[in-house]
Each structure stands twice: as C-alpha cells, then as structure tokens.
C-alpha cells in the first residue's frame, strides 16, 4: 500500500497547531514512516495539490477564504480540522460578540473597508469536515491519536464528557475551591485538564461537550459571584459559535 499523502493548510490562526506538529520531534519522523507530507508551508518549500488528507488550521474569516477551502475539500479525501480556530472559530470568534463595523474601525480606522473580514467561523461551517482535533493548541497526543485512527481506518476516541473528569483524574484542586471560576464543567475533556494542572483555570478551548448543561453552569457561576457580563464573556471566549443563540 502506498503511503497516504498529507497536506497542511492554515487560515486565520496563530499556527500553534502546526507548531505542535513540528514539536512532535522524533515522533514526527515516526509519523513520516507511514505518511508522505506533500505540503506544509510552515516547514517545507515543496507543494503539491495531490493529497489524500488535508489538515486545516485556522478560522475562515473572509469570503475570499471560502474558495480556497472548497478547493482543498475537492482535492482531499479526508479533511481534518486542527485546533480551536478551525473546529469552532476559536479565539477569533471573540470578535463576533461585538458589532463587526466597530471592530473593523477600531483596528483599521478610516481604511477599515480595505481589509476584508466577516464573522469568524470554524471551517466546518464552510466545508464538510471528517475529523476534528480540538484544543488551543491541539495536544500532540490527540493529533497522533487521530493520525493513528486515519492509518487504521477507525474512528478516534475523542472524549464526550466534561473536563471535570480529566481534572479529577489529574488530582487537581477544583479552581472553584480556590475562589476562581472556570468553564470546565461544560467543556469537552481530552487535554488532561492541562491548564488547571498548570495553575490556571479551564478556559474552554476544546469547545462545548455534547449536551452541555449550560443553564446549570450559568447558575453556578452566578452563585460564585460572577456578574452576568463576566459570565457572558467567560462563555464567549471559546463558545461564541457553539452556544445556542439568545
């Protein structure tokens, strides 16, 4: 069997997910035993449009990106969205919570119209996506897991339960016990709650778990003295495009 050809693409994002791939170090060489990378702008000059699997990082933030995305979809047998920006709009979607014109004028002043942009969205809103690797950035282990799934033709086992599970398994003190708040109880697990383990709180970068109990969490956050505005902002950091409207 010939090696599947893979390509990396990026849209609006910080390239942290592609860096995560580079950071695989020796494991990347192991991956290369099984796949052929035909396009990876961040790391190589060669490029080919003949690929089987496309890994796409970043959000779609302007009409012009849509055509490029559709081309990639046409060329690829399998499209994998990597990182929060691509799976849900990620941090980029924060700009969606304020009026677009205000946002554009704040940054580019009177020239704001010269710089094309629209509501930041995950690429799944533009093209069909076969797999999603969540996280900001995605974790190395989940990326490798998905690669192995692609190689073995199975569905990767991506958790569908809240971050609290990872946190309890890691033995963390709940941030609520420390007078802080987080959105872990409605966030999809799978990162070993790394941010909480490192002394921060869960910001929600892996997106909402399926069937999140958002109302219950709003109530809890209010109980912990978060103002409605703060609460909305906390939820907006990564959930803007995922939360039910209204």
């Amino acid at each position: 069997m010939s090696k599947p050809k893979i390509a990396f693409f990026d849209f609006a994002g910080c390239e942290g997910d592609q860096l995560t791939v580079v950071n695989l170090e020796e494991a990347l060489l192991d991956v290369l035993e099984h796949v052929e990378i035909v396009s990876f702008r961040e790391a190589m000059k060669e490029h080919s449009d003949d690929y089987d699997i496309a890994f796409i990082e970043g959000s779609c933030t302007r009409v012009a990106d849509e055509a490029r995305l559709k081309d990639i979809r046409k060329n690829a047998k399998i499209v994998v969205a990597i990182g929060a920006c691509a799976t849900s709009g990620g941090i980029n979607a924060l700009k969606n919570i304020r009026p677009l014109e205000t946002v554009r004028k704040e940054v580019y002043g009177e020239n704001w119209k010269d710089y094309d942009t629209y509501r930041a969205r995950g690429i799944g809103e533009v093209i069909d996506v076969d797999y999603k690797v969540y996280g900001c950035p995605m974790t190395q282990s989940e990326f490798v897991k998905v690669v192995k799934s692609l190689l073995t033709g199975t569905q990767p086992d991506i958790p569908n339960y809240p971050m609290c599970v990872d946190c309890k398994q890691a033995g963390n003190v709940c941030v609520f016990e420390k007078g802080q708040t987080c959105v872990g109880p409605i966030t999809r697990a799978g990162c070993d709650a790394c941010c909480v383990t490192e002394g921060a709180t869960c910001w929600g970068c892996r997106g909402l778990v399926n069937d999140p109990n958002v109302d219950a969490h709003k109530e809890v956050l209010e109980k912990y003295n978060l103002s409605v505005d703060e609460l909305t902002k906390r939820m907006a950091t990564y959930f803007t495009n995922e939360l039910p409207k209204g």
Partner: protein
Amino acid sequence: MATAMNDKSLYAPVIATIEEAKMLTTTEKYFKLKLNNGNELGHKPGQFVEVSVLGIGEAPISISSSPTQKGYFELVVRNAGNVTGALHKLEAGSTVGIRGPFGTNFPYEETKGRDILFVAGGLGLAPARSFINYVLDNRGDYKDVTILFGAKSPTERFFTDELKKISEMKDVNLLETVDNGDASWTGNTGVITTLFSKINPNPNTTSCVVVGPPIMYKFVIAEAKKKDITDDNIIVSLERNMKCGVGKCGHCQINNLYCCQDGPVFTLAEVGQIPEAF
C-alpha cells in the same frame, strides 16, 4: 469457569485463528474460529465471548455455533463500529483475541421435554442459532420446535442455506417474515409479531426464546403473553455496553443486575419488573 482465559490476567485474551470468514450480508460477516492452544471453547448455547482486535479494542459477540459442534466455534459480526469494523477486514488465517465464554446460557437442559418457540429478529438469529442447532442436534430431547425469524428485508437474511434446510425439516416449523419485501420475496411481509397469528403454542409446555434488537422485545413479549406463556418460560437475551465481560467494569448494569454475569440470558420472570431492562 471460562476456558479461553489468560491465567495471569482476567482481561488478557488468548489467541484464536480464523479458519473461515465470509460475508453473509452487506453488513454481517461470518467467522469460524479455533483456539490456538487447541482447547475446546466449551461454551453453552447463549453465551458470548469477548473478541479482541489488538490495537483497536474488544467487543462482546455471541457464540453462534452449538456446542455439539466440536473443534471450532462460530461468530456472526455486524459492522457497527471500530472493533467490528476491524473484524470485517480480517480473513481466514488472521488471528484475533478471545476471552470467554461468558454469561448465562439458554436453558437447554431445563427445557428438555418441552416445546421450544424461537423468536429471532435480525442479528438475533446469530445467538439463537447456538440453541437452535443444539436442539436440532438433540432433536429427540425436545418436543415441538417453532422458529420465527424476521429480517428487515430479504437481503438482510443470513444463514439462508441453513434456513432452507430447516424449512424442509418435517419436525420443525419455520416461519419467516421481512419488514419490507422486494421482487424476489414471496414469503410473509410485516414485522415479526405478525407471525404470532400463525402459531398456536401450548402455554403449558412452551418455552419461548426471544432474541433481537432492543426495540423488538416489548412487542414480542406482549404477543407471547397473549398466548399465555408464563414469565418463567419467556427467555430473552439482552445487549448492553460491556467493557470487561467479567462483572467488574459496571457498564452493563441493568439496575442491580450485571448483564455479563447475571445475563445476557434472562427469564422474563427475572427482569420483567426491572425498570431498565427493556
């Protein structure tokens, strides 16, 4: 005690080789297997094994062959996900991991001398077959034997050669139906419960064995009850999520019962009142 077990760990399988593999329908594949250590599996009709494709995972699969067949055992696997999908890619000569046999069995001893009514829906024929074939191989031990088999469509019927043979047997009453027929189909159409109007089991002497998809039970049980078959004599085989097969992982619990240990074969008397059973 289970025979296909690693003596160091409950959870480590032993290796079995696929002697024969063939597609029965577009979604069901048949496997004939032999344990590499030469042991007989030694199962009873209705029991299941945990089948491993190492690196992918493990899935509980009912043993489809009767223990009267020696030297091998048979499975029928529907492609439903990762493990079953990986199994579908395997051909004769490949190896798989096996643990088992596990669980309770159909009451093949207790029902000797009685009439047996099998009601099998779709894939339910696979586990039912272990008992059906046992009965056929010990035909003298049982009285009237009736088999009701329902499939969604004619193309989803499997073991058709065997069904044909059975249909030719004088001492077995086989009734089939499909939910939706096609041009080739001349038999009954309609859901499996429609076959009940064609039979007349004796409630005092009949044991009714029901195996099929979760949705089927409620309706079939109601029909069996209408025929006055008692809860003791309605026997079901239930499916649950199972991760260990040995009563530890907790996934298969039906309220207080462990489907893998207390089941998968239950009488309605045991589970009829249990809210989570159906």
